C-alpha cells in the first residue's frame, strides 16, 4: 500500500484543484509526440502529425490529451486504491492498445513539465513536485501492473 503523508495529500489536491485538464492535457500529449516522436506510432489514426505545428494544432491530439488528463481524476479521488482503480485500464493498454508502459512514465514527465511551466516555482515548489511526481509514479505503476 502506498503511504501518503498529510502534506502530500494536501499538495496533490491543491495542484489538482488548479489544473485545467483541457489545457494541460493537450499540452502534455503534444509534448510527448514532439519530444519523443517515436510515441507517434500509437496515433496513426490521428491524422497529420508531421510537424510540431501540426501536432499542436491537431484536434484529435487535443481531445485525447484532455481525456487522458481527465482520467487522473479517478486517481486523485482514490489515492489509497489507485492500483485497483486502474486495473481495467491497465489491461486495456496492454491487451488492446499494446502500449509500451515506458510511455506512461515519459508522459508523466511531460505532464510535470507542463505543470511547472504553467504554475512556476512558487506553486510548483520542490515539495509540491515531490508529491505530484510520487502521485504520477503510482498511476504509472498501476497502468503497467496488469501487463504480462
Amino acid at each position, binding site marked *: 500500500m502506498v503511504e501518503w503523508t498529510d502534506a502530500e495529500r494536501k499538495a496533490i489536491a491543491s495542484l489538482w484543484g488548479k489544473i485545467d485538464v483541457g489545457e494541460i492535457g493537450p499540452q502534455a500529449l*503534444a*509534448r510527448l509526440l*514532439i*519530444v519523443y516522436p517515436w510515441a507517434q506510432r500509437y496515433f496513426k489514426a490521428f491524422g497529420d502529425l508531421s510537424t*510540431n505545428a501540426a501536432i*499542436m494544432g491537431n484536434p484529435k491530439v487535443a481531445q485525447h490529451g484532455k481525456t487522458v488528463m481527465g482520467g487522473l481524476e479517478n486517481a486523485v479521488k482514490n489515492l489509497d486504491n489507485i492500483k485497483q482503480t486502474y486495473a481495467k485500464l491497465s489491461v486495456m493498454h496492454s491487451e488492446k492498445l499494446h502500449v509500451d508502459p515506458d510511455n506512461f512514465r515519459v508522459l508523466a*514527465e511531460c505532464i*510535470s*513539465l*507542463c505543470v*511547472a*511551466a*504553467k*504554475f*512556476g*516555482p512558487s506553486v*510548483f515548489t*520542490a*515539495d509540491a*513536485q*515531490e508529491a505530484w*511526481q*510520487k502521485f504520477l509514479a503510482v498511476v504509472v505503476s498501476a497502468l503497467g501492473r496488469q501487463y504480462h
Partner: protein
Amino acid sequence: MLSKREKDLIKEIWERLTPVAAEIGADALLRMFASYPGTKTYFSHLDISPNSSHLLAHGKKIVLAIAEGAQDISQLTVTLAPLQTLHAYQLRIDPRNFKLLSHSMLVSLACYLGDEFTPVAHAAMDKYLSAFAAVLAEKYR
C-alpha cells in the same frame, strides 16, 4: 540529433541563464533531492539545506559546466574531458542519476522560463542534457 537551430537555441538559453547559475543549479539540486532521496547519498559531505552556501556553490558549478558545453556542442567530448575523468575515477556517481538531475533541471527551466519553455525548447534541452550525460559517463567503463 541536434539541428543547428536547436544548438543555437540551447546556446542562447544557457548564455542567458549564466548570471543566475547558482539559483537555477541550487533549485534543480533541491528538486532532485526532494523527489529522489537516494541522490542525497552523494552529498553527505555538504550542507544541502535550502539556501546553504554549499548548495548554491555546487549548483553554480553544475550549471556553468552545462553552459560551457552549450557554447560548442560539437566539441562536448573535448570540453568535458576533465569532468569525465573526475566522475569516472573519483566521484563515481551512478550514471543513472544523471537522468534524475536532467529531469530536475528541466523542471527548474520550465518554472523559470514559463511560456518560453516551448515544446521546441523542451525537446532541444532534453536532447542536449541526454548527450551531456552520455559524454560525462563515457570513461566509466
